């Protein structure tokens, strides 16, 4: 409880927490409030918003309920963002720990590979990966993680380099622990905090990348995505700009919420550190 209060100190963190909480409620409530297929036709095509009480945000070009799509889109955005970020953090911290702890040739090879992934434009890589393997939720998550793990890997490696000289690591060596066991049970957990500090930026970037991919038609075709909704609305941009604008605002608010909450967490832990 104390930790929560410390987190909610700044107005920015409170705003971020509220946005994220609303979003999670939206994502969880989507199948309850809008059961059935959100991609099914619900009314006349291109119904303007605030006209029909049963369709508050109107309908799109094919007569689908915009509000239902918005709720279901929140599910996809959050799921992909969180899964891709978790995968990126996992790959990054494992690669970084191995590179930093092993040193020598292993370090050189792993860091060159990290360099290579950092040099290739991540979005182009994701584009190529999805278009070759075929669009599905898992592939999109993998494609995004492919371009996002390098940051965590570098941070983890730098942290491991300083940790591996500590006394408790020497102690673990003396009692005969296997180097891999030391790396993953003693070193990695202690190297995690600065890596986890990157998570809000990575989640935000993952949500934006997913939106851009589905905007280009490379999202999972069986799921509603905000990027896909914007692309749909684009065809009637002149007559019904609303259809592109609304999912875009949802995206901006989501990413902003993630940033704000992330800064709040970092700040509250920084305060705790400077106090202790």
């Amino acid at each position, binding site marked *: 409880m104390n930790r929560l209060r410390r987190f909610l100190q700044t107005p920015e963190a409170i705003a971020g927490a509220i946005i994220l909480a609303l979003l999670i409620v939206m994502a969880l409530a989507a199948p309850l409030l809008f059961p059935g297929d959100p991609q099914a036709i619900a009314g006349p095509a291109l119904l303007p918003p605030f006209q029909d009480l049963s369709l508050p945000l109107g309908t799109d070009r094919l007569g689908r309920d915009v509000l239902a799509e918005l709720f279901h889109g929140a599910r996809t955005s959050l799921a992909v963002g969180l899964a891709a970020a978790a995968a990126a953090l996992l790959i990054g911290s494992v690669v970084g720990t191995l590179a930093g702890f092993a040193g020598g040739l292993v370090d050189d090879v792993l860091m*060159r590979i990290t360099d290579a992934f950092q040099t*290739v*434009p991540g*979005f182009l890589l994701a*584009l190529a990966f999805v278009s*070759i393997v075929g669009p599905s939720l898992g592939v999109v998550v993998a494609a995004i993680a492919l371009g996002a793990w390098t940051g965590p890997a570098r941070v983890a490696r730098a942290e491991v380099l300083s940790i591996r000289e500590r006394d408790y690591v020497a102690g673990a060596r003396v009692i005969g622990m296997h180097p891999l066991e030391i790396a993953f049970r003693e070193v990695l957990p202690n190297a995690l905090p600065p890596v986890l500090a990157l998570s809000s930026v990575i989640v935000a970037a993952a949500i934006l990348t997913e939106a851009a991919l589905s905007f280009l038609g490379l999202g999972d075709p069986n799921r509603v995505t905000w990027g896909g909704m914007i692309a749909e609305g684009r065809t009637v941009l002149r007559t019904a700009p609303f259809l592109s604008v609304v999912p875009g605002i949802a995206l901006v608010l989501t990413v902003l919420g993630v940033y*704000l909450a992330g800064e709040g967490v970092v700040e509250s832990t920084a305060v705790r550190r400077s106090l202790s």
Partner: protein
Amino acid sequence: MTRALALLHRRLVGSVFVLLIVVIGSFLLLEAAPGDAVDAYIVSTGGDAGMIELLRHRWGLDQSELTRLANYLWALLHLDLGQSVTFSRPIREIIFERLPTTLILMGSATALSFCLGSALGIYAGARPGSFRDRLLSIGSLALYAVPGFWLGLVLIVVFAVDLRWLPIGGIETIASAKTGLARAHDIATHLVLPVSALGFIYLALYLRMMRAGMAEAWRQDFVLAARARGLSRRRIVLAHVARNALLPLVTMLGLQSAQMLGGSVVIESVFAVPGLGRLAQEAVAGRDTPLLLGIILVSTVLVIIINLLVDLAYAVLDPRVGASEASA
């Protein structure tokens, strides 16, 4: 000068490894994709089963994977990127046709985001914690949360559809037969919206970096010394605090280039700008894997070159960089 050369040497060696890894990676992706170069060729020219066999044999596609990788590397050494499926033309030709447009777009967007971003960052960082600082911080965070393609669409709705100030897309007026300055002006008006959409997102990044760097620099002793010497506030802000915060932004310029290339894919699709990014989208739409991988390879080389240039600029700007290599 030896400093810069030593740095260049070390970076070039590293770049060769990076490029090799990227090439092998793109070869693996090419192998994983359904269909091969012969299928692509047959689609565009037509031919029977005997022809397919013959071509597979002649192009060495019936050989082992390692031989094919060697052939692929050998072709790349000769700058041969293969044949495009959708365009039925050599990939190298298509890419070099599209590259200048993307370079203009990226260059202008980078200039816009860097100049405006660092200027606003100086304005915010001149008084850390003030009202304008908080306002700009929140504003830049909100801007950083905006998807580039969506900002592009909103700009189109406002400036091209409603106000009709600017063209809705494309790179120049089709069949206008403009030449010289008139044509340059035409292209510039077409570029205003895409450059803004791409540049404004990254503006936030430079603003935040500049502001954070300045907030850090204010606490340093040399600022106290400058104050004690009785320098004007303006002089301290510009010549001492901002100057020290500027260097990391130059590094960011290089790191950002890869992301900007990715961002130009969506922006070019939104504004129908015939550049490398739109080409990538066309390659995806046409299931043209060799073309897509060719684009990735060329963009990787581009990112490496940009980063080398940034490193060199850095070595010139900061005498500490590369000093250890030169003396070693």
